[in-house]
């Protein structure tokens, strides 16, 4: 065995060109896979750093006729927690934005309001200090204590060793820092912003003053729920118990809970985001699929090259066989050679992955940093690469080894491979050359699939940029600000909003400025509610449809550039105490008042006893994905309903970027403790939103090009080998008067045949495979333009790859070719 390996090394060194091509192919294949695996690992596989994550489940509220998984009403949560016996603990948590003063700079943070048992249910201990005592969520406003993340501690407090016991101001109230979490714990989401602090939910009057009803009514679905199964209890049993409790609550509080039930998911799935986990899985599968294709192509290449070498070595092998070497020994030796090659390839692949990871990281959108996603090359990644290396070794080594060891003794020793043999064409089909042809066709097919994927994503990005978002993108700048997080009262906040509008509008170059709770393509702060038009019986789908509500100041529509198609804009007269008014989107009008004019009509929502009068209809704007269908949207007047966190929208006549410092200064002038706003142009906000599509396009393009490059090597290799093998035949043809063009055609035709077969198979495979990614695209997965363009490109590329060997064929000297040996 050792001797086999030594021999294998020697033969790798003795054929430097072959070894280089093989190792490079494998390095690219293995490297691409390892790179993507670091991403998959970070998103899907790294366990959440909690105790026994398998026991943890996430609970959701469900409603009939709706596929959405909703949060819990806080009061309902308490009833579930106190009555369902299948859990050893159940905790609630709720996102909250806050501004903190007391670190290096005033800073805006994302954190969680949590029940006091949050950390004990998860089984997370503080790395410094403590977590919450069991009674710290019992009395409102009684426990101003806060646990901070390791990231916040190191970034904002410079890793201060005496952090525990330090006081900071959070939204204008004093809080004591009582603990720091371990570095790996960032809350319960595997991607997206990690939590930076945790505060008992009893502190909601300080941190969420705008929504006191969240904690006192059963209408508002406002907290997320995580629970730990008692040992020995299955998720199904717990689910049943939850549903029974939901039935009880429905009977007890029919107004609010009549339609509601519950659903459980393993926490490991819920952390991906219950709504987006399918898309994420699909994206992950797509990337792994693409890199898998690259690896398969690389393996086909290597198999093909080794097959050619095995053919060339038939004489050596025949001699070994004739002196009595058993066939398994030859196979073992050939496998040792491929193992050595795959090890070299794997090692080089690790290097490629190292660079690939940096490249991947460089492609991230502007807002993402290592708090969001940590692409570590950890032991699991290493194990993956090693497994892959061995798998590929077998994949590309086995067939050539078996083929190679099957030398025909007599003819091999005579060196008469080209002498007409007595085999039928049928058995020849099973032999090396045809195997290589199949491999090449397969490569073409796989490349086509990868390229078509890339093409579809590329077209999607183009298409998405062409899609109308429903408002004017150019010259619009947005800045998010959280006034509640400054501890502002509603009056103070409204004053701040008005002053900000005045001062920003006074800046030269600014056409208009206004605030909106929610701005298309930039941030979603508002709540969603159900809409009940006056005097109407709604179908069940509409009754359980949650419509986003959006508090906006006057001139929101003209500033953002959403056309008002009917009625009027809000005005200062729409103030508190006046009649409650709303502007609805065209889709809302069509869905809730089909065939009618809703202007002047009234509707209600569950958290407000009074009616809202529709005073205007605005064109649909895309708040969610650009490619998605228009969804209903309801605007309320911010002068009538205070919103604690809003986005300042500024329309400028020219390029807004030079005005950014002036924007910041203006806000600082209004409140020096306000975290500096981060202005962003709408153009860049949209670019960030298209990030996944663009990343998909870029990655697949990289993999597609890799795949094609490897395929070109494959085609070239096979064609060159074919020309060598057919030298004599070509010589005969030339002797019989075949002209150059005829010989060129002969060879190119063979290459084209392989390509055509590959393209045909690849088209069919693409047609099937791209169906799986349809939801990630803005174009049809069967987009004919993409299919045609890619097929033609690939055909041209393969002709070019075959051209060099073909030209060599025309230079065959018939005399040399025909000389009998």
């Amino acid at each position, binding site marked *: 065995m050792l001797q086999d390996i030594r021999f294998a090394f020697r033969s790798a060194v003795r054929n430097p060109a072959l070894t280089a091509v093989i190792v490079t192919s494998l390095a690219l294949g293995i490297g691409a896979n390892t790179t993507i695996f670091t991403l998959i690992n970070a998103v899907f596989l790294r366990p959440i750093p909690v105790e026994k994550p398998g026991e943890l489940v996430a609970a959701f509220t469900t409603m009939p006729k709706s596929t959405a998984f909703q949060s819990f009403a806080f009061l309902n949560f308490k009833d579930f927690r106190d009555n369902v016996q299948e859990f050893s603990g159940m905790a609630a948590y709720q996102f909250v934005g806050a501004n903190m003063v007391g670190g290096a700079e005033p800073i805006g943070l994302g954190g969680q309001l949590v029940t006091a048992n949050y950390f004990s249910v998860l089984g997370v201990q503080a790395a410094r200090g403590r977590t919450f005592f069991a009674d710290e969520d019992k009395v409102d406003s009684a426990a101003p204590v806060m646990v901070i993340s390791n990231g916040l501690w190191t970034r904002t407090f410079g890793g201060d060793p005496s952090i525990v016991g330090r006081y900071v101001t959070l939204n204008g109230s004093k809080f004591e820092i009582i603990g720091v979490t371990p570095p790996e714990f960032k809350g319960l989401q595997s991607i997206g912003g990690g939590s930076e602090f945790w505060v008992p939910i009893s502190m909601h009057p300080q941190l969420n003053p705008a929504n006191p009803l969240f904690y006192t009514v059963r209408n508002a679905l406002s907290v997320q729920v995580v629970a730990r199964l008692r040992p020995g209890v299955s998720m199904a049993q717990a689910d049943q118990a939850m549903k029974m409790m939901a039935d009880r609550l429905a009977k007890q509080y029919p107004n609010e809970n009549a339609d509601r039930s519950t659903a459980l998911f393993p926490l490991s799935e819920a952390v991906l985001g219950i709504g987006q986990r399918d898309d994420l899985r699909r994206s992950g599968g797509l990337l792994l699929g693409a890199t898998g294709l690259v690896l398969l192509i690389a393996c086909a290449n290597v198999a093909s090259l080794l097959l050619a070498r095995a053919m060339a070595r038939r004489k050596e092998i025949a001699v070994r066989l004739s002196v009595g070497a058993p066939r398994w020994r030859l196979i073992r030796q050939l496998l040792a050679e491929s193992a050595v090659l795959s090890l070299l390839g794997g090692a080089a692949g690790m290097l490629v992955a190292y660079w690939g990871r940096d490249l991947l990281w460089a492609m991230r959108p502007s807002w993402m940093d290592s708090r969001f996603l940590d692409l570590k090359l950890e032991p699991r990644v290493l194990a993956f690469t090693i497994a892959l290396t061995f798998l590929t070794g077998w994949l590309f080594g086995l067939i050539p080894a078996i083929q190679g060891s099957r030398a025909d003794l007599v003819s091999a020793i005579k060196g008469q491979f*080209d002498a*007409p*043999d*007595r*085999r*039928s*064409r049928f058995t020849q089909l099973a032999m090396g050359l045809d195997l290589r042809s199949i491999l090449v066709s397969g490569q073409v097919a796989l490349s086509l699939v990868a390229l078509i994927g890339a093409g579809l994503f590329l077209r999607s990005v183009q298409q998405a940029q062409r899609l109308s978002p429903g408002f004017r993108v150019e010259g619009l700048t947005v800045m998010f600000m959280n006034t509640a997080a400054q501890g502002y009262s509603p009056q103070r906040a409204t004053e701040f909003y008005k002053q900000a509008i005045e001062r920003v509008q006074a800046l030269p170059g600014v056409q208009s400025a206004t605030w909106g709770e929610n701005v298309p393509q930039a941030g979603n702060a508002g709540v969603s509610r159900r809409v009940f038009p006056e005097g109407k019986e709604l179908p069940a789908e509409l009754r359980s449809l949650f419509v986003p509500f959006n508090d906006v100041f006057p001139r929101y529509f003209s500033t953002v550039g959403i056309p008002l198609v009917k009625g009027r804009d809000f005005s200062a007269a729409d103030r508190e105490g006046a009649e409650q008014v709303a502007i609805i989107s065209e889709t809302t009008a069509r869905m809730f008042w089909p065939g009618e004019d809703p202007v002047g009509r009234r509707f209600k929502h569950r958290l407000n006893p009074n009616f809202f009068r529709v005073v205007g209809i605005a064109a649909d704007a895309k708040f969610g994905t650009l490619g998605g269908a228009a969804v209903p949207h309801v605007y309320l007047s911010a002068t009538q309903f205070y919103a604690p966190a809003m986005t300042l929208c500024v329309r400028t006549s020219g390029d807004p970027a030079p005005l950014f410092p002036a924007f910041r200064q203006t806000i600082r002038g209004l409140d020096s403790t306000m975290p500096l706003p981060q202005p962003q142009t709408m153009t860049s906000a949209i670019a960030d939103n298209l990030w996944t599509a663009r990343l998909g396009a870029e990655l697949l393009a990289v993999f597609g090009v890799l795949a094609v490059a490897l395929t070109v090597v494959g085609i070239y290799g096979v064609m060159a080998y074919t020309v060598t093998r057919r030298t*004599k*035949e070509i010589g*005969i*043809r*030339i*002797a*019989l*008067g*075949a*002209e*150059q063009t*005829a010989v060129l055609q002969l060879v190119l035709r063979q290459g084209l045949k392989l390509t055509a077969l590959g393209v045909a198979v690849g088209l069919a495979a693409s047609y099937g495979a791209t169906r799986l990614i349809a939801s990630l695209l803005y174009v049809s997965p069967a987009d004919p333009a993409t299919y045609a363009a890619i097929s033609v490109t690939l055909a041209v590329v393969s002709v070019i790859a075959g051209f060099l060997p073909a030209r060599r064929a025309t230079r065959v000297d*018939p*005399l040399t070719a*025909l000389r*009998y040996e």
Partner: protein
Amino acid sequence: MSAETQTLLRMNGVTKVFLTDEVETHALSGIHLEINAGEYVSIAGPSGCGKSTLLSILGLLDSPSDGEYLLNGNPVQDLDLGERARIRNREIGFIFQAFNLIGDLTVFENVELPLTYRGMPGAERKKAVQEALERVGMAHRVKHYPSQLSGGQQQRVAVARALVGKPLILLADEPTGNLDSQNGEQVIELLQELHRGGATICMVTHDQRYSKHADRTINLFDGRIVDEVEAAQQSSAH
């Protein structure tokens, strides 16, 4: 030679020098040669004396280093690759020692090959191939592959391929070299038969038994023609 015999090809002072590793090999020196239409010429001589080289130049597979070569009255020594390919295809029929049939093609396709390079219509090709195979007695094997035939049969197919295009001359380089004596005899008989039918043949052989059938035997030695023997003299020598 009677007046009406037509000179088919003529060589004047043809020389062939091979340059390998700075060693000059004079394979042919000052060859003067004429072959008339309908003649059966045999080229003989020891191994390495230049027989194959001479035949290659006759067949336009190779060109002379010096000298003049007229085929059907036209100088052909300086033609380009394409023109030479066209002449090989139309005017010359080759028969090789190693048969040189293409293993991936059937008997029919092998014989058809020279015609396809002329762009002859399919129906016409089929007729010509059928005729040629009938003349060599292989018409019953059209669908076979060369590997399914005996050596003698393969060489017959090769002869059919050589004559299917109705060339001016058939060139055969040791056509019996790979055959046993019985099969060899049969191929020679076939050539004689073709000759009787009017074909011009130039055959290389080092086997005395076969060269006796020729009208004329040219003896080569060390790249030079040392002797030319007419058939009549040959037979009287026996």
